[in-house]
């Protein structure tokens, strides 16, 4: 089943580009169909029961091919891809560009699926590269010079990341004689004191941190997010960096290296990202750039949870659960925020907040959904973001990481501050004269906004059920 996730996009890609352009008109529906297929697969894949987080415990020897972490990611990829497509449909009208972008989206989809599914370090690298290449093209697809600039910076940093990762892969390969996760994991256990392996873990990890855009490896991220076309920034922020950076880091930590070896690094980097990202987001004029820094900050939370997981014990398990949960939540609300930004871009032609104001009355659904996402990202109950942050804080506290827990708590204030700035400058307030003619965004975007907002509220309010089915397996440790 899961090989379909890699094969189908490729097949689609080839079919769409058959000579004569017979099927060219089906580009968008094809991608949409694949995304839906992916969502369905993620939810209903029969190999394991969905609420199977107990498997996290067994992840170190990875008995099942598809754990719930991968499943969460597949689900996120499907959802975000669908959202991105709808935004693409609404924002890009030129048929040719639409077709091209849809093709590259397929490449990206395949790359991400590959990243999630493979169990080989080198294959992981290859698929990361597929995802990245697709991203470069997508970011630059508008042809604007900012897009090219952002893509080029991403490319340079990504190449550096590649070098770092490959160095790590090579050195692990040296010891394991293979690049398979289990073989490398075994080699790492048998050769625990080896300098080269330590360097390898360090460089590979740093490569992933660059891909994930964590401070101080984040330089490319705001530029790329800001400059990407609306639909692409949705995809980038929603899943691409999560999959290529954060998921790979999870995978590395869980399946290969053992989180405990570098959890202090993760904690420090996570905390730094949290604070720096939030501070940077405070003073931005571009909504997308602000959201990009917000991503940096929120990814910091996720990595903090991952670091907490490395502390081991029941608190570590809770931390891992919290990190995965926050990863999912962040995917949803950050996607929603970027869709909001796309809606604004559609109606005002810019993402510069200094020319907006009081659009709440003109774009009620955009405004409401954006408020919901903003509150969720700031960790205000009863929305989804609160619960993941809460679990994270509980985990950090129980792991004895009091300073990190306090920091995580108080960065929420900064988060709320910049999110309120967005609300204030864009939606909440008197409508500007020149924006009185603005309308609600087009149907597809509104649909996405409403759906994602409902997901946020639903996960938040139905947290008991999410907890029962998703987190309770860890209760024994509490």
């Amino acid at each position, binding site marked *: 089943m899961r090989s379909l996730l890699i094969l189908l996009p490729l097949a689609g890609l080839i079919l769409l580009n058959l000579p004569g352009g017979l099927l060219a008109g089906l580009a968008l529906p094809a991608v949409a169909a694949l995304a839906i297929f992916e969502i369905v697969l993620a939810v209903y894949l029969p190999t394991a029961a969905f609420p199977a987080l107990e498997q996290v415990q067994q992840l170190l020897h990875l008995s099942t091919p598809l754990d719930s972490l991968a499943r969460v990611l597949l689900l996120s990829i499907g959802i975000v891809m669908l959202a991105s497509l709808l935004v693409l449909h609404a924002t890009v009208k030129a048929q040719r560009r639409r077709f091209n972008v849809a093709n590259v989206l397929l490449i990206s989809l395949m790359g991400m699926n590959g990243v999630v599914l493979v169990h080989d370090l080198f294959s992981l690298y290859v698929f990361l590269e597929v995802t990245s290449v697709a991203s470069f093209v997508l970011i630059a697809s508008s042809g*604007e010079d900012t897009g090219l600039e952002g893509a080029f910076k991403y490319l340079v940093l990504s190449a550096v990341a590649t*070098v770092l990762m490959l160095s790590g892969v090579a050195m692990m390969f040296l010891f394991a004689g293979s690049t398979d996760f289990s073989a490398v994991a075994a080699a790492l256990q048998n050769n625990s004191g080896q300098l080269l392996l330590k360097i390898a873990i360090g460089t590979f990890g740093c490569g992933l941190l660059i891909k994930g855009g964590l401070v101080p490896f984040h330089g490319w991220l705001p530029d790329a997010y800001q400059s990407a076309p609306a639909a692409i920034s949705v995809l980038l922020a929603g899943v691409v960096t999560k999959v290529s950076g954060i998921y790979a880091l999870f995978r590395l930590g869980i399946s290969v290296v053992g989180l405990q070896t570098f959890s202090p690094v993760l904690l420090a980097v996570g905390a730094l990202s949290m604070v720096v990202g939030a501070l940077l987001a405070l003073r931005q004029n571009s909504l997308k750039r602000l959201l990009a820094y917000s991503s940096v900050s929120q990814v910091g939370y996720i990595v903090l949870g991952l670091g907490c997981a490395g502390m081991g014990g029941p608190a570590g398990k809770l931390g891992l659960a919290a990190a995965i949960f926050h990863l999912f939540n962040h995917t949803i609300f950050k996607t929603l925020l970027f869709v909001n930004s796309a809606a604004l871009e559609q109606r005002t032609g810019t993402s510069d907040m200094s020319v907006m104001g009081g659009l709440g009355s003109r774009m009620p659904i955009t405004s409401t959904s954006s408020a919901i996402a903003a509150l969720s990202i700031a960790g205000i109950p009863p929305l989804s973001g609160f619960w993941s942050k809460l679990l994270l804080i509980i985990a950090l506290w129980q792991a004895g990481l009091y300073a990190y827990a306090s920091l995580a708590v108080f960065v929420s204030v900064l988060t709320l501050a910049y999110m309120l700035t967005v609300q204030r400058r864009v939606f909440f307030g008197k409508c500007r004269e020149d924006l009185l003619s603005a309308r609600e965004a087009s149907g597809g975007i509104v649909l996405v906004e409403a759906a994602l907002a409902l997901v946020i509220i639903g996960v938040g309010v139905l947290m008991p059920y999410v907890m029962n089915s998703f987190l309770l397996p860890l209760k024994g440790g509490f």
Partner: protein
Amino acid sequence: MNNPNWPIFAIFGLGVVLTLGVGFYCVMVTRNLIRALIGLEVLTKAVTLLLVLCGYVAGRMALAQTLAITLIVVEVAVMVVAVSLFLGIFRRTGSIRSTDIQNLKG
């Protein structure tokens, strides 16, 4: 250091480290976008060498060659994209200087 391959690993490893240094230095220092891409290429060379070297030392030459070939293909694809971006930038801005692509900042 008991491994019979140690001298080979040491000398080529030194080569890898130095080449990596050259590449990173180039990427960070140059203001010319093409030269930056050349720097990245140098980096890739170093990594390819490291991969092959590790395969050689580990006695996994077949796999190492496979990986190296894949790596080369990836390298080509990335470079094609990079040069496309470069050309795009050149056409839009008329410049090949990295100082001219600093519009996104702050």
